[in-house]
């Protein structure tokens, strides 16, 4: 059996069997489902106004008398009491409020309540007041409101995308979500699994087994085996997460009689699902190979994890930089010059390109980026392996970048 395969097998199995892997694999979909529940709960308007609110209407002009319509949680009360009296009364009440409509200035209508009123409640009131006011104004102007209602159009704008396979309806929200999810997933997993590679290298070094291993295999074989093994662990975790998330949200979705987020997600990907998933996989794998090689080199250069700081910073800087730019700028301007360059340079491309892909990227740009990505990881792997082979046998040396440079130029 090939020795690299043997190393991959060990690296993979020892990690997948770990309790922390199993816990993470189960925990993340659970958190995901939980988050979905919370978001659904917050987004649900009705939850906003659950208790019955009594709205005391102070309207001395009596324009709105008996015209406001009660809903499930909002009941209107037309009292003849003064505003001051009502205000002192609702001060003691949790859910009641006063709607004050000044006779001569109805446009500065106000609500008074013990608590800040919720958006959906004031929306409801605003809508009703406007309808009533404009209705009576129309009547006053001699317009037949019934007729007006009949001829009033109801136009909704649907965004469409022109593609080769025909026009497609697009959901801008889903595109943003996808773009954001892609960037954040790549960013986090490059960190998490890159650090795992680094920790693995440090473990071999501090436990001193490294010398036994490199008397059996070439350092490059060991490094390759470790990177690929950890990468497969990452892929396994992704597949399990997606599968479990889909399952969990499917079950959760059934209960609330709503489409599950996984379903919505896949649906919003539409016909591009394969393309976008393919891009994600490519940038995940190539980005992981690129960064984990650097992480491996860092791990080989130090004696313990606490010493990694000075090297970690410059390595993670491009990632962090792109990530911050992604969530603030690239979203808005996925076709800007900055977005273009960031998605071409291999160090920043995985995150930047995943932001852009859902908005559509010209084929030549994608091709160029991917080619450079491959060249990039071949290059970093080569550089890293030259540092790695020296570093793993160095102990008790305070290493700086100059020293790493020297190692790079060492002969075999």
């Amino acid at each position: 059996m090939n020795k690299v395969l043997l190393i991959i097998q060990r690296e993979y199995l020892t990690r997948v069997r770990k309790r922390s892997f199993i816990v993470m694999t189960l925990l993340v979909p659970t958190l995901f489902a939980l988050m979905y529940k919370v978001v659904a709960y917050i987004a649900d308007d009705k939850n906003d106004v659950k208790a019955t609110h009594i709205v005391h209407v102070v309207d001395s002009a009596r324009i709105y008398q008996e015209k406001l319509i009660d809903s499930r949680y909002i009941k209107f009360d037309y009292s003849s009491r003064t505003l001051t009296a009502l205000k002192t009364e609702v001060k003691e009440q949790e859910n009641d409020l006063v709607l004050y409509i000044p006779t001569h200035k109805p446009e500065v209508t106000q609500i008074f309540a013990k608590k800040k009123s919720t958006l959906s409640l004031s929306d409801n009131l605003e809508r009703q007041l406007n309808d009533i006011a404009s209705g009576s104004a129309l009547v006053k102007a001699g317009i037949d409101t019934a007729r007006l209602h009949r001829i009033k159009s109801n136009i909704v704008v649907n965004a469409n995308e022109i593609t080769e396979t025909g026009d497609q309806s697009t959901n801008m929200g889903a595109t943003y979500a996808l773009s954001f999810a892609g960037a954040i997933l790549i960013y986090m997993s490059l960190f998490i699994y890159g650090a795992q590679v680094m920790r693995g290298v440090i473990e071999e070094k501090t436990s001193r087994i490294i010398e036994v291993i490199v008397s059996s295999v070439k350092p490059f074989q060991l490094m390759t085996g470790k990177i690929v093994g950890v990468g497969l662990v990452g892929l396994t975790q992704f597949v399990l997460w997606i599968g479990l998330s889909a399952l969990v949200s499917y079950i959760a979705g059934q209960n609330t009689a709503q489409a599950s987020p996984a379903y919505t997600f896949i649906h919003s990907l539409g016909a591009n699902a394969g393309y976008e998933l393919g891009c994600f996989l490519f940038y995940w794998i190539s980005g992981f190979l690129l960064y984990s090689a650097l992480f491996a080199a860092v791990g080989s250069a130090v004696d313990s994890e606490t010493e990694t700081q000075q090297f970690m910073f410059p390595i993670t800087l491009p990632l962090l930089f792109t990530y911050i730019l992604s969530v603030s700028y690239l979203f808005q301007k996925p076709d800007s010059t900055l977005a273009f360059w960031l998605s071409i340079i291999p160090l920043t491309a995985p995150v930047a390109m995943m932001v852009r892909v859902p908005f559509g990227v010209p084929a030549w740009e994608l091709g160029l980026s991917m080619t450079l990505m491959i060249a990039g990881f071949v290059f970093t792997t080569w550089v890293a392996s030259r540092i790695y082979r020296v570093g793993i046998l160095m102990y008790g040396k305070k290493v700086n970048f100059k020293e790493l440079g020297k190692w790079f130029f060492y002969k075999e």
Partner: protein
Amino acid sequence: MLSIRNIVKQYAGHRALDDVSLEVQSGQVFGLLGPNGAGKTSLIRIINQITAPDSGEVFFNGQKLNQAHIERIGYLPEERGLYKKMEIGEQMIYLARLKGLSRAEAQKRLKFWFDKLGMETWWKKKIEELSKGMQQKAQFVATVLHEPDLIILDEPFSGFDPVNAEIIKDEILALNKKGATILFSTHRMESVEELCDAIALIHQSHKILDGTVKNIRNSYRSETYMVEYAGQRLSFNGAQPFDVIGDTITDDDNHTIRIKLNEGYTSNDVLQYLIPQVRINMLQEVIPGMHEIFIEKVNANNKSHE
């Protein structure tokens, strides 16, 4: 078996090995001696192909050292270590498979070794659950499991308690008897005369002495003898065929002297001179131990560099 020719290894700032050559014969127990930092580990790493020399060549059974030879060599580094979180059985099999053994074969041999060294119950234990001595025993097994032709041990006895050190020593000798060539480095001389057929002494990156233990010791003979006699205490006036080194040690009637033969005389001449005067209990040639040779050589080398 192993032929090391003109090896030079340069590290930034210092030369770890400078034109070192040596020959290890098949079936030998070869001792690589030298003070700490002399370059022993650098040489061992080159033989293990962990690093490559800047110049010079290594031949293994007449062939230029290459990747195929890795499986024929077993290596126990000075700094021992295993994966702490991994079960010992699984780990031994992994290491053996990296040396080219099949899983089934590794399992079979491991069972044999575990039985032999009283480790049967350890199989499922993690390394971190074992004592340091137990870990070292396990590591020794890992070194020899693939039945290498050449076993390289860097400071093999450091870290072992006396009982385990004895067990390991016996196992090394047993493997040697079965045909394995042993190369071990040490800076402790006690084990050398007992174990080694041949040695090389490395000091300050140079080989300053090598050969079989017997030849080296013979070449350091200095015509010095220890004589114990009974009877009257003798005083010497210079007419005898030897010089007396130091004082006469007297214990009751028995006197012991250290002598150095004068040029052209043999031990027989000593006896002929003494027998008429006293009764001889003992006459023994004093051959310097490896320890003395080591110190003498290293000191001489230090002086020549000053």
